[in-house]
């Protein structure tokens, strides 16, 4: 029982980071039907930005997090503007291949500039472990979970309550009608990339704090897992992405806990395959009915 609870806590901490990443995936897909495979690399850039500002400018955690989110938001907007916007009316596969290209560009660009070897992320917060009823929880885990939940609530607020959030839902739902009420889709798309990338950047800083190690290729696997999380939740669905992220995190730690560490990534893909077979539109995915 203790082990289960312990692994559940570990899984939720890791899962909250996947959830942050999956949210960006699902929002971008919802708006422009693009699987932004460079999303995991924005998370990597976030981790590197956090690394530099903590090491060289001695930012504390909060400032590191906020500045990272601002920078990755900007990076996301620039990527969309330079790489995806010219392909807005091109076949979807062209944009998809471009996304993979952007991903390689960021990974190899960072390897070229800063070397491919892993660096240890500065411990901006000293780790303490709390023991509650035989279960160990670190302050880092609490910070990760707290930050992730705070950001998800904030996102929910933006999407439900603000004018731009409503415009996002309108564009995702019916791009032509959105234009007819005067929404400029380019603004909404930039805004979506900014928010999604800010969340990915936050995830990068949090994972640095959690695993202590960052490198230019660190975004690849989490990027794909976040994609799986978004598909499991139902791509395009915001609550789905959060739930999917937590599920993938829990699944991954559970696989490790039963001694199958080597297969933890495989387990995620097995889930993807099962979901696609059994529930192709995911947990919260809509089976879109055409109204005549």
């Amino acid at each position, binding site marked *: 029982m203790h082990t289960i609870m312990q692994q559940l806590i570990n899984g939720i901490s890791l899962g909250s980071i996947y959830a942050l990443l999956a949210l960006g995936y699902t929002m971008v897909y919802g708006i422009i039907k693009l699987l932004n495979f460079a999303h995991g690399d924005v998370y990597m850039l976030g981790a590197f930005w956090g690394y530099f500002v903590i090491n060289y400018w001695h930012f504390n955690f909060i400032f590191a997090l906020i500045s990272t989110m601002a920078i990755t938001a900007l990076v996301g907007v620039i990527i969309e503007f330079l790489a995806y916007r010219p392909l807005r009316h091109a076949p979807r596969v062209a944009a998809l291949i471009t996304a993979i290209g952007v991903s390689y560009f960021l990974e190899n660009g960072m390897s070229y500039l800063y070397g491919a070897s892993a660096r240890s992320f500065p411990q901006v917060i000293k780790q303490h472990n709390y023991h509650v009823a035989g279960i160990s929880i670190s302050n880092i885990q609490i910070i990760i979970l707290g930050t992730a939940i705070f950001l998800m609530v904030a996102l929910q607020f933006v999407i439900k309550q603000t004018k731009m959030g409503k415009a996002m839902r309108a564009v995702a739902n019916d791009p032509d*009608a959105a234009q007819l009420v005067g929404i400029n889709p380019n603004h909404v798309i930039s805004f979506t990339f900014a928010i999604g990338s800010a969340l990915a950047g936050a995830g990068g800083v949090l994972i640095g704090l959690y695993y202590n190690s960052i490198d230019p290729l660190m975004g690849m696997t989490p990027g794909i897992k976040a994609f799986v999380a978004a598909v499991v939740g139902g791509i395009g669905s915001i609550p789905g992405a959060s739930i999917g992220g937590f599920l993938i995190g829990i699944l991954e730690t559970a696989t490790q806990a039963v001694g199958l560490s080597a297969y933890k990534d495989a387990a995620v893909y097995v889930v993807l395959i099962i979901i696609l077979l059994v529930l192709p539109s995911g947990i919260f995915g809509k089976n879109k009915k055409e109204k005549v």
Partner: protein
Amino acid sequence: MLKVEHLVVNYGAIKAVKDVSFEVHTGEIVTLIGANGAGKSTILKTISGIMRAKAGTVTYEDKVINLSSASRIVQLGISQVPEGRHVFEGLSVLENLQLGAFTQPRGADISASLEEVFTRFPVLAERRKQDAATLSGGEQQMLAMGRALMAKPKLLLLDEPSMGLSPIYIQKVFDIIKTIHEQGTTVLLIEQNATQALSIADRAYVLASGEVKMTGTGAELLADAQVQAAYLGG
């Protein structure tokens, strides 16, 4: 108010609109009638800026607008109620209406516009919290019209507002168009229900395969033998 001159619009490889010219004067109800595929919807989409003209111009209040963005055109005072209603499903009725006021400047009295729409369409007030997808077709048409009115248009474009509705709702829609017009909004109406459209229109244009075939007052065309045979089922 609105002048369309020598408009040519391609839909992919198809010439959907070939050299169409017409005018809408301030205070009028003008209707374009014609069979499916006559190019009526394409013309409205081009006026609204979501399709681009291949040639020709659209002039609104002495400004050429066929190169302006769709959002700019809404700001200038042209709103469209699209064919098939296109309400935002998954968003509440209230949110749909709020989005209708998207281009209204900060500080605009949106709650006053909302009250107006709710008075005009009491059913929307009742259902304000409901998901727009749960409304009936007729209610969705009311919502689409209410949403367009939230932008306070000077010129309202309506694309097949009676399509797929029950006779009661069709009558309702035409009554509402009449009151909107009486309250000072100019209307450009596209309809397959030609009898109804012609009976409320000041002037009308008959379109066939992307060209204007005939024009006249609503009453003239309603009485015309050719129009009767081709579009009025009789």
